[in-house]
């Protein structure tokens, strides 16, 4: 369990946050994060770690789903965030291949305070604007998207998309999702699906 010494809390956090902001404002848009020398545990990719470092601190809570190799301790010690049960977590880290059960207890906010909903960080094998054989083709519509957007993903369980759709059915309640992966060059990258995005999918 490593404490990262090369991560710049001021400038790396700022740059990565801007990338995340841009992706969240333009759902489906892929942004590459400026890489930082990191050594996360095997279950966590670099983009997830960097997203966690950019957003979480001692006031945040998180949970990791199905990760057993010190991922939770890594996130906790590097951000001072607290690990809690899924229902109370602000941030939930999971693999895209995970089964959707954990989404049922994730906090989707209240009508009075929809901003208290959780953010889910889903790790994918790959994502791209060009077709990925064996993956899913996502068609995206909604705020932030000019007309329709397309994103190809691999390593995303379609059941998760179905479960997200159900949880996001009654706007403003819903869960916001960050998709993390390594791009073709191996650099950490992300895209985002806020709860306002309408997603339809088919196999590639």
């Amino acid at each position: 369990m490593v404490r990262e010494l090369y991560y710049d809390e001021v400038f790396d956090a700022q740059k990565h946050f801007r990338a995340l902001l841009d992706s969240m404002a333009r759902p489906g848009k892929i942004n590459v994060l400026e890489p930082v020398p990191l050594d996360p545990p095997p279950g966590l990719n670099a983009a997830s770690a960097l997203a966690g470092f950019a957003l979480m601190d001692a006031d945040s809570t998180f949970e990791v789903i199905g990760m057993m190799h010190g991922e939770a301790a890594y996130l906790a010690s590097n951000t001072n965030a607290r690990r809690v049960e899924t229902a109370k977590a602000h941030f939930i880290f999971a693999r895209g291949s995970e089964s959707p059960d954990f989404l049922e207890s994730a906090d989707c906010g209240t009508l009075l305070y929809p901003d208290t909903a959780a953010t889910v960080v889903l790790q994918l094998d790959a994502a791209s604007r060009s077709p990925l054989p064996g993956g899913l083709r996502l068609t995206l519509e909604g705020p932030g998207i000019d007309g329709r957007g397309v994103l190809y993903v691999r390593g995303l369980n379609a059941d998760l998309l179905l479960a997200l759709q159900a949880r996001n059915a009654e706007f403003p309640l819903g869960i916001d999702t960050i998709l993390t992966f390594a791009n073709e060059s191996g650099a950490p990258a992300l895209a985002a699906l806020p709860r306002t995005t309408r997603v339809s999918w088919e196999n590639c």
Partner: protein
Amino acid sequence: MVENAKFQSSYSYGFIDETTKKEIRRKMLKAICIPGYQVPYSSPEMPISRGWGTGGLHLTLSLMGRNDVFKIIDQGSDASVNACNLRQFVQMMTECAVTYDTAQATIIQSRHRVPEEVLTDQQILVLQVPQPEVLRGVERYEFRTRQMHAEADYARMWVSLYESYVRFGALMRGAGYPIKVNSRYIATPSPIPRWDTPNLSMANCLYLFGAGREKRIHAIPPHTRVEPLEFEDVRFKVEEFRGILCSASGQDKAFMDEIFDDADRRKHVINDSNFLDKVKTGPRPPQRLFTNPE
């Protein structure tokens, strides 16, 4: 983790400490995920008074990085006292580049105007908001306005527009015309003139709204439908400036200030100072113009 040694100085990069910036950043993201909804945030103390742009500063300083180019205008002017003070502060705190040129800026902070020149997908407009609660005029209590937003119970807002029309012949007097964002939340666009309001809809840039005194952030993502509230038979209209030309540039089709010269003659001048500079010396920058319905 090691804080960047260069900034182990008497204040943080961007003045606001990293923990607070993170909180503001988290709230900004949630605001984007719920277009038009007012997210409560910490609104830390700044070295300027409330009511002078602290909300805008919170957003700007949490966004700003070393590669950003910063522009700030106050009622259209880069050179006004407030704009100069805030620009100096931001530059000192972030060592960023600054510009008057709308097209060059990556982050634009503004009070009471949206720039005439169309903004791109590389730009963020941060608007300063005095009163973010659009329903405050019809309901004093926060717990009730929050309930009204939660249930999309906007009847009273509509009645107040009806009453305004019946009494004064106009749906809304003053600045800050109420808008419906993404067909769900009714919000204030901040006290911008009606001329600017259509610019918020289906734009390429991101709009962020910061209210420091009231401690709320709201957002309008790009390509989001924003509709000014109107009735089927009483429609939203922007200011017309029919037959009026800017006395400094001879141009029309921009939001004009009305001024009286030393001989008490009434003149109009384009309000957006950078846009005015550009049309005086070169081609007209691209704009989005709205045509009033019949």
